[in-house]
């Protein structure tokens, strides 16, 4: 469904991605791992067109999306939940959802409120009144009502209390259940191993490992080499 092929991305003169290739198939949850500064966020930004790759191509559902504008990428069915969540602080919870809602989405407001009861309680509150966990839930919910076929999540559990992390994990499982594919960037390796069908590891702008769930479980050396903090 998504096929990233040898992309090179830059910020000004600094060359960040050195030919990243990866794939996400229908219905899959795929994780993208790597140390701080490896280029995970840049990869996601390149997919949605916030950063335009200078080389390589990105195909989604068989058509090229590299180089097209961000809003058109979103309309094609890729929703990106950024690391900082991007909740509109001045808008109410309901308005945050309403501006994203599309009729053809399998996730409507009622499905969202059923899966995120907290958001229903707080639907008249402003974004700025929400806790970190609630903002993350809202960010995911807002992406879902946008009708994506593929959801990109950048560190969804970052900075959240363990109970909330569990809730986020359940939500991602529910997203997969509904048939939406997920590309997940996550520092919490337990969360990743729990959710993802396949894993990629990024190191200094290169994909240095890819493997299935089972392969990754036994690849202790790989985990040690690329993922432990130093």
């Amino acid at each position: 469904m998504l096929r990233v092929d040898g992309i090179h991305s830059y910020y000004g003169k600094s060359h960040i991605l050195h030919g990243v290739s990866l794939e996400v198939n229908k219905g899959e949850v795929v994780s993208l791992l790597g140390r701080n500064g490896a280029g995970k966020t840049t990869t996601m930004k390149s997919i949605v067109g916030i950063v335009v790759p200078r080389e390589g191509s990105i195909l989604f559902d068989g058509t090229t999306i590299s180089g097209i504008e961000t809003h058109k990428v979103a309309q094609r069915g890729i929703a990106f939940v950024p690391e900082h969540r991007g909740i509109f602080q001045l808008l109410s919870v309901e308005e945050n959802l309403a501006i994203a809602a599309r009729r053809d989405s399998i996730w409507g407001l009622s499905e969202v409120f059923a899966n995120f009861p907290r958001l229903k309680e707080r639907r008249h509150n402003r974004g700025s009144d929400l806790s970190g966990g609630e903002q993350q839930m809202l960010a995911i919910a807002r992406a879902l009502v946008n009708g994506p076929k593929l959801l990109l999540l950048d560190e969804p559990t970052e900075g959240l209390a363990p109970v909330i992390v569990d809730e986020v994990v359940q939500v991602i499982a529910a997203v997969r259940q509904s048939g939406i594919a997920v590309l997940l960037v996550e520092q919490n390796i337990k969360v990743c191993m729990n959710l993802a069908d396949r894993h990629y590891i990024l190191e200094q702008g290169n994909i240095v490992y890819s493997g299935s769930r089972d392969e990754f479980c036994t690849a202790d050396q790989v985990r040690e080499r690329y993922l432990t903090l130093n």
Partner: protein
Amino acid sequence: MSLYLIQLINGLGIGMIYFMISVGLSIIFGTMNFVNFAHGAFYLLGAYLCYAVVAATGSFWLALAVAPPAMALTGWFAERYLLSRLYHAPHQYQILVTLGLALVIQEGVMLVWGAIGQNVATPVLLQGVVVFGSFVYPKYRLFVIGFTALLTFVLWLALERTRYGAILRAGTESTEMVALLGIDIFRMFSFTFALGAYLAGLAGGLTAPISGADPFMGPGALSVAFVVVVIGGIGSFSGALAGGLLIGVVQSEMSSLWSEGANIMIYVAMALVILVRPRGLLGRA
């Protein structure tokens, strides 16, 4: 009746006009991070289009119905074909081009209508004064206050109660996030520009019967609008309203207290506000 009360009401009327000039500038700056020095020229051209329609047909009401939409169209074209190319350029390029556009409009106005200002007659219906006991006040100025107040309320409703308004408010926080939701921000920019030009043009048209149409009215209006934007907070609708009214009242009261200093006092007011609230009255981090 007290002179100060009269000046207060005058100030509110002027303040509403300032609000209408500034709100577009503020939202354009807040969402697109775009400095539009041509905004004062939209006000100028609005006044002259109004003059032209009144001169041709004799109807101020027709002028008020036609001139502002014509300005919206002008703003839309300017954005679409000229200014949108500058969104990623540094501010100094934006200033250069929009200043150039302002000069082209100003010179164009002088070419068509001459270098001397033109008067626009007050519509017959609103000539004369209203008298309430000792309160005597020009009808037309009261009309301006009422009309702009109504328009402000309608705008506020549209901004707060419609999906499009919510998108616009979201845009003042992050256009990137708006785009990530599949919303065409470039269409939003064009629309915002057209709306800003509409309001500036309308302000010009409404002012014309009071102070006429003058080829040099643009820069003054622009500098006041920048003051209002700074006082109210960039990108804030209610801030532009508060800032516009504050400046209108300060200027108007000062003109009877110390007329030479009335214009300086608006900058003093601005300095005081940003000393206390660097982001403006209703600005945010």
